[in-house]
Protein backbone atom coordinates (compact mmCIF):
# COMPACT_ATOMS: atom_id res chain seq x y z
CA UNK A 1 0.00 0.00 0.00
CA UNK A 2 1.34 3.36 -1.03
CA UNK A 3 1.75 6.22 1.39
CA UNK A 4 -1.09 8.09 -0.37
CA UNK A 5 -3.45 5.14 0.15
CA UNK A 6 -2.37 4.89 3.75
CA UNK A 7 -3.01 8.62 4.17
CA UNK A 8 -6.40 8.31 2.43
CA UNK A 9 -7.40 5.45 4.72
CA UNK A 10 -6.33 7.41 7.80
CA UNK A 11 -8.21 10.49 6.60
CA UNK A 12 -11.42 8.46 6.05
CA UNK A 13 -11.06 7.02 9.55
CA UNK A 14 -10.62 10.52 11.03
CA UNK A 15 -13.74 11.68 9.16
CA UNK A 16 -15.74 8.66 10.47
CA UNK A 17 -14.67 9.39 14.03
CA UNK A 18 -15.49 13.06 13.57
CA UNK A 19 -18.98 12.14 12.26
CA UNK A 20 -19.68 9.73 15.16
CA UNK A 21 -18.55 12.34 17.70
CA UNK A 22 -20.73 14.97 16.07
CA UNK A 23 -23.75 12.61 16.02
CA UNK A 24 -23.14 11.63 19.64
CA UNK A 25 -22.84 15.27 20.79
CA UNK A 26 -25.94 16.29 18.79
CA UNK A 27 -27.95 13.38 20.25
CA UNK A 28 -26.82 14.16 23.81
CA UNK A 29 -27.58 17.85 23.26
CA UNK A 30 -31.06 16.98 21.93
CA UNK A 31 -31.73 14.74 24.96
CA UNK A 32 -30.51 17.43 27.39
CA UNK A 33 -32.74 20.03 25.71
CA UNK A 34 -35.70 17.64 25.89
CA UNK A 35 -35.01 17.02 29.61
CA UNK A 36 -34.86 20.77 30.28
CA UNK A 37 -38.11 21.32 28.34
CA UNK A 38 -39.80 18.50 30.30
CA UNK A 39 -38.51 19.93 33.57
CA UNK A 40 -39.82 23.42 32.72
CA UNK A 41 -43.15 21.93 31.62
CA UNK A 42 -43.41 19.94 34.83
CA UNK A 43 -42.61 23.02 36.98
CA UNK A 44 -45.19 24.99 34.98
CA UNK A 45 -47.77 22.29 35.60
CA UNK A 46 -46.91 22.11 39.29
CA UNK A 47 -47.31 25.83 39.83
CA UNK A 48 -50.48 26.00 37.80
CA UNK A 49 -53.59 25.23 39.88
CA UNK A 50 -55.69 22.37 38.59
CA UNK A 51 -58.74 24.61 38.37
CA UNK A 52 -59.46 28.02 36.90
CA UNK A 53 -61.64 30.89 38.01
CA UNK A 54 -63.18 30.67 34.54
CA UNK A 55 -64.97 27.52 35.68
CA UNK A 56 -62.91 24.72 34.21
CA UNK A 57 -60.76 21.95 35.68
CA UNK A 58 -57.42 20.79 34.34
CA UNK A 59 -57.17 17.00 34.26
CA UNK A 60 -54.23 14.88 35.36
CA UNK A 61 -52.43 13.37 32.39
CA UNK A 62 -49.32 11.43 31.56
CA UNK A 63 -47.37 11.02 28.32
CA UNK A 64 -45.36 7.86 27.64
CA UNK A 65 -42.98 7.29 24.74
CA UNK A 66 -43.28 3.60 23.84
CA UNK A 67 -41.02 3.63 20.79
CA UNK A 68 -43.41 3.53 17.84
CA UNK A 69 -45.99 5.75 19.53
CA UNK A 70 -46.78 8.17 22.30
CA UNK A 71 -49.48 6.99 24.71
CA UNK A 72 -51.33 9.71 26.59
CA UNK A 73 -53.55 8.85 29.55
CA UNK A 74 -55.98 11.41 30.96
CA UNK A 75 -58.02 11.11 34.12
CA UNK A 76 -61.45 12.72 33.62
CA UNK A 77 -63.61 11.75 36.60
CA UNK A 78 -67.23 12.94 36.44
CA UNK A 79 -66.84 13.78 32.75
CA UNK A 80 -69.77 13.15 30.44
CA UNK A 81 -68.09 10.55 28.20
CA UNK A 82 -70.23 11.54 25.21
CA UNK A 83 -68.88 15.08 25.35
CA UNK A 84 -65.17 14.23 25.36
CA UNK A 85 -63.68 16.19 22.47
CA UNK A 86 -60.10 15.48 21.33
CA UNK A 87 -58.57 17.63 18.55
CA UNK A 88 -55.12 17.80 17.02
CA UNK A 89 -53.21 20.75 15.60
CA UNK A 90 -49.53 20.54 14.68
CA UNK A 91 -47.89 18.96 17.71
CA UNK A 92 -50.76 19.86 20.07
CA UNK A 93 -53.60 17.76 21.46
CA UNK A 94 -56.57 19.80 22.67
CA UNK A 95 -58.99 18.11 25.04
CA UNK A 96 -62.35 19.34 26.29
CA UNK A 97 -65.05 17.46 28.19
CA UNK A 98 -68.22 18.57 29.93
CA UNK A 99 -68.79 17.50 33.53
CA UNK A 100 -71.89 15.37 34.14
CA UNK A 101 -72.99 18.00 36.65
CA UNK A 102 -71.72 21.40 37.83
CA UNK A 103 -69.22 21.06 40.66
CA UNK A 104 -68.12 23.38 43.44
CA UNK A 105 -65.03 23.24 45.66
CA UNK A 106 -66.99 24.70 48.57
CA UNK A 107 -67.22 21.44 50.52
CA UNK A 108 -63.48 20.85 50.34
CA UNK A 109 -61.71 24.19 50.43
CA UNK A 110 -62.42 27.79 51.35
CA UNK A 111 -60.37 28.87 48.34
CA UNK A 112 -62.38 29.25 45.14
CA UNK A 113 -65.52 28.05 46.88
CA UNK A 114 -67.76 30.41 44.89
CA UNK A 115 -66.78 28.96 41.51
CA UNK A 116 -68.85 26.33 39.75
CA UNK A 117 -66.97 24.05 37.37
CA UNK A 118 -68.56 22.82 34.17
CA UNK A 119 -65.82 21.25 32.09
CA UNK A 120 -62.27 19.96 31.69
CA UNK A 121 -59.80 21.71 29.40
CA UNK A 122 -56.21 20.81 28.59
CA UNK A 123 -53.64 21.27 25.84
CA UNK A 124 -50.84 18.71 25.61
CA UNK A 125 -47.72 19.30 23.56
CA UNK A 126 -45.92 16.38 21.90
CA UNK A 127 -42.42 16.53 20.43
CA UNK A 128 -43.73 15.35 17.03
CA UNK A 129 -46.20 16.63 14.45
CA UNK A 130 -49.40 14.64 14.91
CA UNK A 131 -51.02 12.90 11.96
CA UNK A 132 -54.72 12.57 13.04
CA UNK A 133 -55.12 9.52 10.79
CA UNK A 134 -52.54 7.73 12.97
CA UNK A 135 -54.29 8.32 16.28
CA UNK A 136 -56.45 5.96 18.36
CA UNK A 137 -58.64 7.24 21.21
CA UNK A 138 -60.35 5.00 23.78
CA UNK A 139 -62.40 5.90 26.86
CA UNK A 140 -63.01 3.71 29.89
CA UNK A 141 -64.60 4.67 33.24
CA UNK A 142 -63.70 8.36 32.90
CA UNK A 143 -60.16 7.67 31.75
CA UNK A 144 -58.97 8.40 28.23
CA UNK A 145 -56.16 6.71 26.34
CA UNK A 146 -54.80 8.42 23.22
CA UNK A 147 -52.29 6.52 21.12
CA UNK A 148 -50.40 8.76 18.69
CA UNK A 149 -48.34 6.69 16.26
CA UNK A 150 -45.06 8.26 15.15
Amino acid sequence: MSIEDEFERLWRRIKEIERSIREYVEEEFRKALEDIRNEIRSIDRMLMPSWSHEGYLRPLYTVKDVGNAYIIYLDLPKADEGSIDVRFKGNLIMIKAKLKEGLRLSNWSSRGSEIKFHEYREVIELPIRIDPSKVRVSIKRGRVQIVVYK
Partner: protein
Amino acid sequence: MYVEVYREEFLGDFRFIEYKPFRLQKPAYAIIALPDAGLVGVIGAWHIVKSLELEEVGGIDSYSFLPPVIVVSNKEIKLPVRIFAKDDLLLVYSEFMLPQAGMVQLSRVLLNYIERKGVEYIVLMSGIPIQNRFEVEKLRTYYITTSPKASELLKDVEAIPFENGYLVGPYALLLKESIKLRLDSIMLLTESFLEFPDPEASAKNIKVFSRIIGKSIDVKDLLEQAEVIRIRARDTMKNVVRNLAQMRKEYEYTPPLHI
Protein backbone atom coordinates in the same frame (compact mmCIF):
# COMPACT_ATOMS: atom_id res chain seq x y z
CA MET B 1 -58.64 27.99 67.12
CA TYR B 2 -55.39 26.99 68.83
CA VAL B 3 -53.91 23.53 69.05
CA GLU B 4 -54.26 22.15 72.58
CA VAL B 5 -50.96 20.53 73.54
CA TYR B 6 -51.27 17.77 76.10
CA ARG B 7 -47.86 16.24 75.47
CA GLU B 8 -44.90 17.26 73.31
CA GLU B 9 -41.85 15.25 72.35
CA PHE B 10 -38.86 15.98 70.11
CA LEU B 11 -37.48 12.98 68.22
CA GLY B 12 -34.61 13.96 65.94
CA ASP B 13 -35.79 16.82 63.73
CA PHE B 14 -39.44 15.94 64.33
CA ARG B 15 -41.83 17.37 66.89
CA PHE B 16 -44.59 14.99 68.06
CA ILE B 17 -47.60 16.60 69.70
CA GLU B 18 -50.51 14.87 71.40
CA TYR B 19 -53.67 16.93 71.76
CA LYS B 20 -55.13 14.63 74.41
CA PRO B 21 -54.18 11.46 76.29
CA PHE B 22 -55.00 8.20 74.53
CA ARG B 23 -54.40 4.53 75.22
CA LEU B 24 -54.72 1.73 72.67
CA GLN B 25 -56.50 -1.58 73.34
CA LYS B 26 -54.49 -4.75 72.79
CA PRO B 27 -53.60 -6.14 70.31
CA ALA B 28 -53.11 -2.71 68.75
CA TYR B 29 -52.61 -2.01 65.05
CA ALA B 30 -51.03 1.04 63.44
CA ILE B 31 -51.59 2.21 59.89
CA ILE B 32 -49.04 4.55 58.35
CA ALA B 33 -50.45 6.31 55.29
CA LEU B 34 -48.04 8.31 53.16
CA PRO B 35 -48.33 9.55 49.58
CA ASP B 36 -47.20 6.94 47.07
CA ALA B 37 -48.46 5.28 43.87
CA GLY B 38 -52.04 6.36 43.07
CA LEU B 39 -52.37 7.88 46.57
CA VAL B 40 -53.77 4.45 47.42
CA GLY B 41 -52.59 4.58 51.04
CA VAL B 42 -53.84 8.06 51.91
CA ILE B 43 -57.22 7.70 50.17
CA GLY B 44 -57.80 4.39 52.00
CA ALA B 45 -56.63 5.81 55.33
CA TRP B 46 -58.96 8.78 55.07
CA HIS B 47 -61.87 6.41 54.44
CA ILE B 48 -60.89 4.37 57.53
CA VAL B 49 -60.75 7.56 59.63
CA LYS B 50 -64.28 8.45 58.52
CA SER B 51 -65.79 4.95 58.67
CA LEU B 52 -64.42 4.01 62.09
CA GLU B 53 -64.80 7.58 63.40
CA LEU B 54 -61.20 7.81 64.54
CA GLU B 55 -60.36 10.81 66.68
CA GLU B 56 -57.52 13.20 65.86
CA VAL B 57 -55.22 12.84 68.86
CA GLY B 58 -51.95 14.37 67.71
CA GLY B 59 -49.65 15.44 64.93
CA ILE B 60 -46.07 15.62 63.75
CA ASP B 61 -44.16 18.61 62.42
CA SER B 62 -40.63 19.38 61.28
CA TYR B 63 -39.08 22.68 60.31
CA SER B 64 -36.21 20.81 58.61
CA PHE B 65 -38.11 18.35 56.46
CA LEU B 66 -41.70 19.48 56.01
CA PRO B 67 -42.85 22.49 53.99
CA PRO B 68 -43.87 25.54 56.03
CA VAL B 69 -47.50 24.48 56.12
CA ILE B 70 -50.41 24.10 58.52
CA VAL B 71 -53.63 22.24 57.89
CA VAL B 72 -56.86 24.05 58.74
CA SER B 73 -59.54 21.47 59.41
CA ASN B 74 -63.01 22.64 60.51
CA LYS B 75 -61.51 25.96 61.66
CA GLU B 76 -58.88 24.18 63.78
CA ILE B 77 -55.15 24.35 63.07
CA LYS B 78 -53.54 20.94 62.69
CA LEU B 79 -49.99 19.78 62.02
CA PRO B 80 -49.09 18.50 58.53
CA VAL B 81 -48.68 14.87 59.64
CA ARG B 82 -51.83 13.88 61.52
CA ILE B 83 -52.33 11.14 64.13
CA PHE B 84 -55.73 9.54 64.69
CA ALA B 85 -56.71 6.84 67.18
CA LYS B 86 -59.63 4.84 68.54
CA ASP B 87 -59.88 1.54 70.42
CA ASP B 88 -57.11 -0.70 69.05
CA LEU B 89 -56.15 1.42 66.04
CA LEU B 90 -53.61 4.19 65.57
CA LEU B 91 -53.41 5.89 62.17
CA VAL B 92 -50.67 8.24 60.97
CA TYR B 93 -51.62 10.24 57.90
CA SER B 94 -49.72 12.66 55.70
CA GLU B 95 -50.54 14.16 52.31
CA PHE B 96 -47.10 15.77 52.23
CA MET B 97 -44.14 13.96 50.86
CA LEU B 98 -40.85 14.35 52.66
CA PRO B 99 -37.46 14.51 50.95
CA GLN B 100 -35.51 11.27 51.15
CA ALA B 101 -33.28 12.33 54.08
CA GLY B 102 -36.36 13.39 56.02
CA MET B 103 -38.15 10.15 55.20
CA VAL B 104 -35.22 8.09 56.52
CA GLN B 105 -35.32 9.95 59.83
CA LEU B 106 -39.12 9.98 60.07
CA SER B 107 -39.28 6.19 59.51
CA ARG B 108 -36.97 5.66 62.47
CA VAL B 109 -38.59 8.05 64.92
CA LEU B 110 -42.16 7.23 63.88
CA LEU B 111 -41.70 3.49 64.35
CA ASN B 112 -40.01 4.17 67.67
CA TYR B 113 -43.00 6.30 68.76
CA ILE B 114 -45.51 3.71 67.54
CA GLU B 115 -43.69 0.91 69.36
CA ARG B 116 -43.76 2.90 72.60
CA LYS B 117 -47.52 3.38 72.17
CA GLY B 118 -47.88 -0.40 72.51
CA VAL B 119 -48.67 -1.19 68.88
CA GLU B 120 -48.27 -4.86 68.01
CA TYR B 121 -48.77 -4.85 64.25
CA ILE B 122 -47.96 -2.16 61.71
CA VAL B 123 -49.99 -2.19 58.50
CA LEU B 124 -48.77 -0.29 55.47
CA MET B 125 -51.14 0.00 52.53
CA SER B 126 -50.19 1.21 49.10
CA GLY B 127 -50.50 0.63 45.39
CA ILE B 128 -48.27 -1.42 43.15
CA PRO B 129 -48.26 0.36 39.77
CA ILE B 130 -49.04 -1.78 36.76
CA GLN B 131 -48.59 -0.50 33.24
CA ASN B 132 -51.93 -1.91 31.98
CA ARG B 133 -54.07 -0.56 34.85
CA PHE B 134 -56.23 1.19 32.23
CA GLU B 135 -57.48 -2.23 31.06
CA VAL B 136 -57.49 -4.15 34.38
CA GLU B 137 -60.71 -4.27 36.40
CA LYS B 138 -60.08 -7.12 38.86
CA LEU B 139 -57.22 -5.93 41.02
CA ARG B 140 -54.82 -8.26 42.77
CA THR B 141 -53.47 -7.55 46.25
CA TYR B 142 -50.00 -8.66 47.28
CA TYR B 143 -48.44 -8.68 50.71
CA ILE B 144 -44.98 -8.49 52.25
CA THR B 145 -44.39 -9.19 55.95
CA THR B 146 -41.40 -8.64 58.18
CA SER B 147 -41.95 -11.61 60.53
CA PRO B 148 -43.63 -15.03 60.73
CA LYS B 149 -45.97 -13.59 63.39
CA ALA B 150 -47.17 -10.94 60.93
CA SER B 151 -47.57 -13.59 58.19
CA GLU B 152 -49.95 -15.53 60.47
CA LEU B 153 -52.50 -12.73 60.11
CA LEU B 154 -52.63 -13.19 56.35
CA LYS B 155 -53.62 -16.84 56.34
CA ASP B 156 -57.26 -16.48 55.27
CA VAL B 157 -57.22 -13.22 53.36
CA GLU B 158 -57.55 -12.51 49.66
CA ALA B 159 -53.93 -11.53 49.12
CA ILE B 160 -50.95 -13.25 47.59
CA PRO B 161 -47.34 -13.02 48.71
CA PHE B 162 -45.19 -10.61 46.73
CA GLU B 163 -42.42 -12.96 45.74
CA ASN B 164 -39.90 -11.08 43.62
CA GLY B 165 -39.35 -7.50 42.60
CA TYR B 166 -38.38 -4.09 43.87
CA LEU B 167 -40.25 -1.70 46.12
CA VAL B 168 -39.21 1.95 45.92
CA GLY B 169 -40.35 4.89 48.03
CA PRO B 170 -41.42 5.75 51.57
CA TYR B 171 -42.84 2.31 52.34
CA ALA B 172 -39.57 0.62 51.37
CA LEU B 173 -37.89 2.70 54.08
CA LEU B 174 -40.56 1.85 56.65
CA LEU B 175 -40.14 -1.87 55.92
CA LYS B 176 -36.35 -1.62 56.27
CA GLU B 177 -36.71 0.16 59.61
CA SER B 178 -39.35 -2.36 60.76
CA ILE B 179 -36.87 -5.16 60.16
CA LYS B 180 -34.14 -3.26 61.98
CA LEU B 181 -36.41 -2.69 64.99
CA ARG B 182 -37.83 -6.27 64.78
CA LEU B 183 -41.41 -5.01 64.42
CA ASP B 184 -44.25 -7.10 62.99
CA SER B 185 -45.21 -5.22 59.86
CA ILE B 186 -47.48 -6.05 56.95
CA MET B 187 -47.33 -4.27 53.63
CA LEU B 188 -50.43 -4.55 51.41
CA LEU B 189 -49.96 -3.66 47.76
CA THR B 190 -52.92 -3.54 45.40
CA GLU B 191 -52.46 -3.11 41.67
CA SER B 192 -52.97 0.54 40.82
CA PHE B 193 -52.16 3.52 38.65
CA LEU B 194 -48.90 5.29 39.43
CA GLU B 195 -49.85 8.81 38.37
CA PHE B 196 -53.63 8.88 38.92
CA PRO B 197 -55.52 8.68 42.23
CA ASP B 198 -56.89 5.16 42.48
CA PRO B 199 -59.75 4.81 45.04
CA GLU B 200 -60.70 1.37 43.66
CA ALA B 201 -57.25 0.08 44.70
CA SER B 202 -57.70 1.71 48.13
CA ALA B 203 -61.03 -0.09 48.54
CA LYS B 204 -59.39 -3.44 47.76
CA ASN B 205 -56.67 -2.82 50.38
CA ILE B 206 -59.31 -1.88 52.96
CA LYS B 207 -61.24 -5.12 52.32
CA VAL B 208 -58.06 -7.11 53.05
CA PHE B 209 -57.21 -4.94 56.05
CA SER B 210 -60.67 -5.38 57.56
CA ARG B 211 -60.23 -9.17 57.34
CA ILE B 212 -56.84 -8.89 59.08
CA ILE B 213 -58.17 -6.91 62.03
CA GLY B 214 -61.53 -8.71 62.10
CA LYS B 215 -63.50 -5.49 61.90
CA SER B 216 -65.95 -4.69 59.12
CA ILE B 217 -65.21 -1.55 57.11
CA ASP B 218 -67.76 -0.78 54.40
CA VAL B 219 -66.17 0.50 51.17
CA LYS B 220 -69.47 1.22 49.36
CA ASP B 221 -69.25 4.92 50.11
CA LEU B 222 -65.62 5.05 49.00
CA LEU B 223 -66.49 3.45 45.65
CA GLU B 224 -69.52 5.68 45.17
CA GLN B 225 -67.41 8.75 45.88
CA ALA B 226 -64.48 7.49 43.77
CA GLU B 227 -64.93 10.08 41.00
CA VAL B 228 -65.17 12.98 43.45
CA ILE B 229 -62.07 11.72 45.27
CA ARG B 230 -60.21 11.54 41.95
CA ILE B 231 -61.06 15.19 41.33
CA ARG B 232 -60.12 16.32 44.85
CA ALA B 233 -56.83 14.44 44.84
CA ARG B 234 -55.50 15.91 41.57
CA ASP B 235 -53.17 18.53 43.06
CA THR B 236 -51.76 16.21 45.73
CA MET B 237 -51.19 13.55 43.08
CA LYS B 238 -49.41 16.02 40.80
CA ASN B 239 -46.92 16.96 43.54
CA VAL B 240 -46.38 13.37 44.61
CA VAL B 241 -45.59 12.14 41.09
CA ARG B 242 -42.69 14.58 40.83
CA ASN B 243 -41.24 13.35 44.14
CA LEU B 244 -41.73 9.72 43.18
CA ALA B 245 -39.85 10.35 39.94
CA GLN B 246 -36.93 11.78 41.96
CA MET B 247 -36.96 8.61 44.11
CA ARG B 248 -36.75 6.55 40.86
CA LYS B 249 -40.13 4.92 41.48
CA GLU B 250 -40.12 3.61 37.90
CA TYR B 251 -37.44 1.16 39.08
CA GLU B 252 -40.31 -0.97 40.42
CA TYR B 253 -41.10 -2.02 36.85
CA THR B 254 -37.61 -3.56 36.58
CA PRO B 255 -37.37 -7.31 37.10
CA PRO B 256 -34.42 -8.19 39.37
CA LEU B 257 -31.51 -9.90 37.63
CA HIS B 258 -30.98 -12.34 40.45
CA ILE B 259 -33.70 -13.80 42.67
